Structures are given as structure tokens and as C-alpha cells.
């Protein structure tokens, strides 16, 4: 069989249909709209089923812990009466050390049920380890494809740790150089093996995360007698926001404000061999966060079930130095040592809690394990080795790819609000661009409004404004 780049890419739809067991064509409505809820319901698991299946492999039921010392400090720098109570969902307590076990758990169960002998996932992060761990528990083979090295064969310590973790769980790991051809390799491996595609963006992946949103809402209600007023979520591909928000709603938390946080890496090119090692964060950053909100259907499956913009109330950015500072703070003041990437949302929460009233509850919905490679000290050592300036000072002086500025005081931690209307507008622009001469129907307008958490009036206005620009 022809394994050239062009030939494999041309067989994409057939390979993915076999690899996911889903005929995505069935859910297409028009060049713009598709039946999202129909696709989400296709694997036929209720939230209750998902909880039971995850429990079989020890996933979920992680503690919701109040960060009393950090809350107290935040109050000391907040306006009178302000400073909400900060809680953290300690997802590092999952088997492979992150919430990604929820994301992998249901998919791997589903793969086993459908009779696949193994699974393939493309991930340089916690998800790869979660797939490898869950596959081990279910007796399936796992192949993990990781973007690890630049062309000098230099790799970030955080990703090298992920290679180690995946191999510790018995997976075959492909350590690849920088490039979007990761998808091409995934298709080739799927074609060679006939394994299941444990994509981050299939329905079972998002259904697994719903258990996290549901659980934290229930815990807040049981422990504190109220739903969280705000849930703060580290945002990359959108799955964490989507699953958590859906679970929250299923628990009844309709008034909870859903906030996404990404590390600000604006200006660095994600497919660049040179920029690759100028990032000190390998996920949870704007390089994924912004494009996945404005064009969600850009993944390794025809339709992405992770649709962050559908559920997001607010999107804020934080700098690398602020996340490293917060990681230290969590260890020193709360006795909880966790990995920096998972603390992106906690760094955002420190700034956001200042806006909340004292009785209000803010939940940071994840932590991740820490180890060699996944520590402020190893990541900053690597940054310095790669020519990044690291210093203490005002974190507003952070320059992605050039300077990491570690705050010297808690009150220097601030978030930058990203304009949601700008995101919605480029989401609609991207949807229109893909379809060229097609003019959207009423159903398409409704879909776009729902998919961008907006109104049909506003979608029409944006479309009019865009056609005026042409």
C-alpha cells in the first residue's frame, strides 16, 4: 500500500471510521452544522454508566480540598468583603496522576467492548500516560505517539518524563520530531494495526470528563451546601472545559460561571522547529487554546466533541512565571506538591478569587502529578539552557519565548481577559470561510449560536459585518 504523505491523508476518513467505530457522516447536517448531541449520545453511555466504568479501574472520586492558607492570603490583598474560598479538585489522585484518566478510561473500556486489541493515541502529555495506564488495566496494547524533539534532538523535560511514564505502563512509544505530521503517523499506525483511535476528541473522551464536573458540583453541594460560584479550568484543546461544564449542568449547577485559563504564549508558532523549545509549557497554553476555540474541527477526527466555546463564560490568560510561582505556593503553604501545567488554573484562580465575595466558592478543577521533568526547577533550568531569560519581577514583563518573569509578591498575579466577542466573531468567520459560496440556513445560524454560546441575532450581525468586509 502507498504510505506516502498524500496517499495516507487521502485515506483519512476510511481509516478514522474503522479506528473510532463512528460513521461521522451520519451526524452531518450541512456544510456548517452537525448533530452534536446525537454524536455525543452515539456510544450510548449515561453519566451513571461512565461513573461505574471509571470506578472499575480506580478513576475518579478524588478529594475536593479547601486551600485555606492561600484563600487567607488572597483576602489580605482583596477589597473589603472580597476574596472567595478557593477549593482544588485533587485529580493527581487518579491512577496515572491526572484528570486525563477520566478522558482515557471510558474510551479504553469502549475499545475493549468493541473488540479492538489495542489503542493508539497522539499525546506528549498526561493523556498518553492515561491511555497507557488504562490500556494496561484493560489488557489492551497501547501505542503512544509523542512530539518530543526538535531537529537537534533536544526535548523538553516535561515531555521526556511522559515518554518514561508511558513506557512504565508498558506502551510502545514513538518519539517524534516537531511537526503536524504526527497525524499522518497516527493514521499509518492505525492502518497497520487495526487498533482503536483513542483520540482526545471522540464522544467517550468527553463523556469521561463529565464525571469530573458532576463530581465537583456534588462535592461542593454536600460539603459546603452550595454549588460552586465559579469553576476555573485550564484550557488547551477544549475537552476539559466541555466535559466539566456538561457534567456541572447535569448536576444542576446552571449558575456556575465557567472560566477557562491558558498560559499566554501568543506569538510562538506551534509547528516551528525553532519555537518548539522556547515554550516552557507544553499544553494549557494559547497555542492550542485560541485556535481550538475559534476552529474546533481541526483535530484527528472529522468532528470534534470538545467544543469549549459552547460552554465558556470567560477566557483569561496568565503568564508562565505566575504559574511557577503558584506551584511553589501550593507546595509551601498547602503542603500539596503538584505539576506546574495543572496549576495554570490555580494561578488564574488567585486573581479571580479577589473578585468574589467571601462566602462564594471557586473550584480549581484539577491538579496533576509531579516528578523529575515536571517541576518548576527542571522547566526553568531547561528554559535558561535554551536562551530564555528567567528573573524575578513584575510578571507583566513576561515575553513568550524570550523572558519568564517570576512574581515577587502575590498581588502581582493578575489575569488578562481575552475578548469573548472577538473569539466568537473569528469562530463564525472560520465557519464561513470553510464553506465559501454556501449561504447559511436558519438551522446553521441556530447551530452557530449554540456552538458559540451566543444568540441568533448576534450571529446574523456578525455574518453581515463579515460580508460587508469582503
Amino acid at each position, binding site marked *: 500500500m502507498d504510505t506516502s*504523505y498524500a496517499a495516507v491523508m487521502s485515506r483519512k476518513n476510511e481509516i478514522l471510521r474503522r479506528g473510532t467505530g463512528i460513521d461521522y457522516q451520519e451526524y452531518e447536517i450541512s456544510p456548517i452544522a452537525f448533530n452534536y448531541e446525537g454524536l455525543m449520545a452515539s456510544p450510548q453511555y449515561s453519566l451513571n454508566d461512565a461513573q461505574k466504568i471509571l470506578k472499575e479501574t480506580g478513576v475518579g472520586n478524588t478529594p475536593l480540598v479547601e486551600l485555606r492558607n492561600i484563600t487567607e492570603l488572597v483576602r489580605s490583598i482583596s477589597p473589603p468583603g472580597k476574596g472567595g474560598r478557593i477549593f482544588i479538585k485533587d485529580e493527581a489522585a487518579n491512577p496515572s496522576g491526572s484528570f486525563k484518566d477520566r478522558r482515557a478510561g471510558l474510551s479504553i473500556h469502549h475499545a475493549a467492548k468493541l473488540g479492538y486489541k489495542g489503542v493508539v493515541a497522539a499525546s506528549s502529555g498526561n493523556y498518553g500516560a492515561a491511555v497507557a495506564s488504562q490500556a494496561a488495566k484493560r489488557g489492551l496494547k497501547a501505542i503512544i505517539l509523542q512530539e518530543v524533539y526538535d531537529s537537534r534532538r533536544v526535548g523538553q523535560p516535561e515531555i521526556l518524563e511522559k515518554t518514561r511514564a508511558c513506557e512504565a505502563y508498558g506502551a510502545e512509544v514513538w518519539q517524534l520530531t516537531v*511537526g503536524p*505530521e504526527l497525524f499522518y503517523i497516527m493514521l499509518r499506525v492505525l492502518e497497520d494495526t487495526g487498533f482503536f483511535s483513542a483520540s482526545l476528541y471522540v464522544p467517550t473522551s468527553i463523556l469521561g470528563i463529565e464525571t469530573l464536573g458532576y463530581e465537583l458540583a456534588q462535592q461542593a453541594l454536600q460539603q459546603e451546601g452550595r454549588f460552586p460560584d465559579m469553576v476555573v479550568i485550564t484550557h488547551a484543546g477544549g475537552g476539559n472545559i466541555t466535559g466539566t461544564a456538561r457534567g456541572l449542568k447535569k448536576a444542576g449547577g446552571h449558575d456556575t460561571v465557567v472560566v477557562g485559563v491558558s498560559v499566554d504564549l501568543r506569538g510562538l508558532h506551534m509547528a516551528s522547529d525553532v519555537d518548539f523549545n522556547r515554550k516552557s509549557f507544553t499544553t494549557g497554553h494559547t497555542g492550542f487554546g485560541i485556535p481550538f476555540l475559534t476552529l474546533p474541527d481541526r483535530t484527528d477526527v472529522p468532528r470534534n466533541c470538545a467544543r469549549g466555546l459552547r460552554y465558556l463564560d470567560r477566557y483569561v490568560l496568565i503568564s508562565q512565571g505566575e504559574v511557577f510561582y503558584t506551584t511553589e505556593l501550593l507546595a509551601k503553604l498547602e503542603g500539596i506538591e503538584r505539576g506546574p501545567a495543572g496549576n495554570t488554573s490555580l494561578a488564574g484562580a488567585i486573581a479571580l478569587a479577589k473578585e468574589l465575595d467571601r462566602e462564594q466558592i471557586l473550584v480549581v478543577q484539577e491538579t496533576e502529578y509531579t516528578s523529575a521533568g515536571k517541576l518548576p526547577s527542571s522547566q526553568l533550568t531547561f528554559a535558561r539552557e535554551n536562551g530564555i531569560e528567567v528573573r524575578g519581577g513584575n510578571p507583566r514583563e513576561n515575553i513568550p519565548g524570550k523572558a519568564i518573569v517570576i512574581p515577587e509578591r502575590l498581588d502581582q498575579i493578575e489575569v488578562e481577559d481575552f475578548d469573548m466577542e472577538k473569539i466568537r466573531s473569528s469562530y463564525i468567520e472560520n465557519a464561513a470561510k470553510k464553506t465559501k459560496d454556501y449561504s447559511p440556513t436558519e438551522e446553521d445560524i441556530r447551530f452557530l449560536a449554540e456552538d458559540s454560546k451566543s444568540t441568533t441575532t448576534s450571529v446574523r450581525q456578525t455574518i453581515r459585518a463579515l460580508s460587508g468586509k469582503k
Partner: protein
Amino acid sequence: MGDAKEGDLVQIHRIILKPDQRPDSLPESTKSVPYECWIKGFLLGREASIGEEVQIETFVGREISGVLVSVNPAYDHSFGLPQKELLSIGRELKKT
């Protein structure tokens, strides 16, 4: 004598795409270099020396070929050096 004998844990290297086989949409810095890959597994069949084309059995039992680059490869990522900008965090807050 080869560097590795049958059954040893080894690492192989493969060039998956040469620069001219990579998509044109890539940034120049990426398009100008090959797309490469490293995989670990157990050496199959015979003794081999670094630089030779070999066959391995991966951790999930698949057979893959490539150029032998390392025998008993180590994980060498570390905890890094202490960072002076981080050392004071928490301590000063506790004093107040």
C-alpha cells in the same frame, strides 16, 4: 563483537519523511529538516553494532526496523537546578 546482543533493550532511529516529502504548509525551520522518530524495544535475531539496520520487538510485541542508536537507553531528565527566584516563595509569606 556487536554493541548489543539479541534480547537487549535498544533504541532505533528512523527517518519518516525527508524534507522534500513534508507538506509545504510548514514553517521553513520545520520544512527544511527531516521528520524523525526514535522507538525502544528488544533486539531481534542477532548481535548488532550502533549504526546498523536492525529489527526490534516493541513493548507491545510489534516488530519494527530502524538504525540502532543506543543500547540500554537511560532516562536522563532531572529535577533541574535550584532556582533562586523560587526559593523565597512561601517563606516570606509565612513571616508576615
